[in-house]
């Protein structure tokens, strides 16, 4: 669940990234966030996960007011979110299994449950054979799928995926998106940042388009179909 009200972000070096974002995502929605390179998509994600602070405006994520979030509450917020980072952010010295298991341990899951859940989720993303590999032993697409597995493993109330299929072939991209759709249908809110137009068009979902830090379109279904490049 997300509420953003006039959110602006100017980075420390003076780069304006968001110029007044108003966005409302309700519990259980599935939303695509699209936009050209450097339009501010990842900046929105980073604000929602409290990785960076907005310059002005107000925002609420999963019932927590980001403007008044104490440092000690940040982990609590993040535990309600499953995030796929654009640059994966896997822990280099941990195996695939450990990377995913760590996210469960961090929320305090019992070892018994972890032992069952992690292989299950890795199988969902097609990595059942790579559990003992380290990230540097994986292909780009495999790393990305580990990131997806980690994001969904805790059954978060909201999944935020920044470009989760950029390194995947069309078939696998579709599989991942279908997976997210299935998870969504079980009640989880899903926000997917993507460039893949085919993918967006093959789902009839709400599409929020942003350009230059502003929302320029917000409608449901076939965003790219109506566009000519």
């Amino acid at each position, binding site marked *: 669940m997300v509420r953003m009200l006039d959110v602006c972000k100017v980075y420390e070096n003076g780069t304006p990234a968001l110029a007044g974002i108003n966005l409302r995502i309700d519990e259980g929605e599935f939303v695509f966030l699209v936009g050209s390179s450097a339009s501010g998509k990842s900046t929105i994600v980073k604000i929602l*996960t409290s*990785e960076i602070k907005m310059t002005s405006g107000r925002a609420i994520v999963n019932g927590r007011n980001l403007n008044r979030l104490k*440092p*000690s509450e*940040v*982990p*609590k917020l*993040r*535990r309600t*979110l499953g*995030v796929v*980072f654009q640059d994966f*952010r*896997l*822990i*280099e*010295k941990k195996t695939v299994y450990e990377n995913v298991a*760590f*996210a469960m*341990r*961090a*929320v*305090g899951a*019992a*070892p018994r449950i972890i032992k069952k859940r992690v292989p299950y989720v890795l199988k969902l993303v097609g990595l059942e054979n790579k559990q003992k590999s380290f990230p540097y032993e994986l292909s780009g697409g495999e790393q990305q799928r580990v990131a997806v597995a*980690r994001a969904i493993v*805790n059954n978060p109330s909201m999944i935020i995926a920044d470009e989760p299929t950029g390194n995947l072939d069309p078939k696998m991209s579709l599989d991942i998106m279908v997976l997210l759709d299935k998870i969504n249908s079980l009640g989880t809110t899903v926000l997917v940042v993507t460039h893949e137009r085919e993918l967006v068009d093959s789902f009839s979902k709400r599409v929020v388009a942003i350009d230059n830090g502003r929302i320029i379109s917000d409608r449901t279904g076939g965003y790219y179909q109506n566009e000519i490049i």
Partner: protein
Amino acid sequence: MRLYNLSYFIRESFESIFKHRFMSFAALSVITACLLLMGSFTLVVVNIENMLKDIEDKNEIIAYVKLDYTYDQATALEGKIREIDDISELEFITKERALQDFKEKKKELKDLLDYIDEDNPLRYRYRLKIHDIRDTETVARKLGRIEGIDKVGARSDITDRIIRVRDVVTAICVVLIAILFLVSIFIISNTVNLTIFNRREEIAIMKMVGATDGFVRFPFIIEGLILGIGGAVLSLLLQWGIYEYIASLVAKSIPFFSIISFSDILHRLALIFFGTGILVGGLGSAITLRKFLKV
């Protein structure tokens, strides 16, 4: 904290030490090296102090009894002298003993002295040692006030020198040890800093997936403690070996110089080593981490 967390933390720490073995080795060896330096220096200082104590022990005060006192009168003074505090040893010396000693010391004059045997010009005397060399003058004054004591021979010039040398040596040692300790602690925490700095991304990622500061910090602290304690054990063993070797060398070449045995200082050394190891390894990690946990 749940029990399975604790077991996870401990397993995690050991694994992490192994996984980052390059840095673990760096940290461990720097801790060991620094502790070894601290230890060696402490041992040298302890021995120097001990040697100075030896010299002090040889410093004595002579109280001369009036020339006209008989043997009985002279020995009777002992009680009064004993009333003075601080005296650690007291010995009465007869005129005859004194002359004998003198002759032995100055063999050159023996012939001359031989014919004054009947008319011994020397006095009865007491030779005494005191606990603290600093009190020499006070004791000398008190002795002088005793009825029957003629003169007090306290070589207060030399005493003074020894006191002053000791004070300065102690001061220099304290300064040097303080510098050494500060530098060692600085170096160790610097190394701990660098190793944690090296893992700042790992820490940031952990925080991003929802781990609390404590959850991230705990294994690091245990890791720091393991390395700190490991370093302490290693350096204590090395120190022992080196010390025994040097001690045996010294014992061979200057037998009159009494070296303190390692077991006498083991507990003090262990305290320093484990204290520093635990403090800088554990607490150092904890403090450094704060910087990198703000994500």
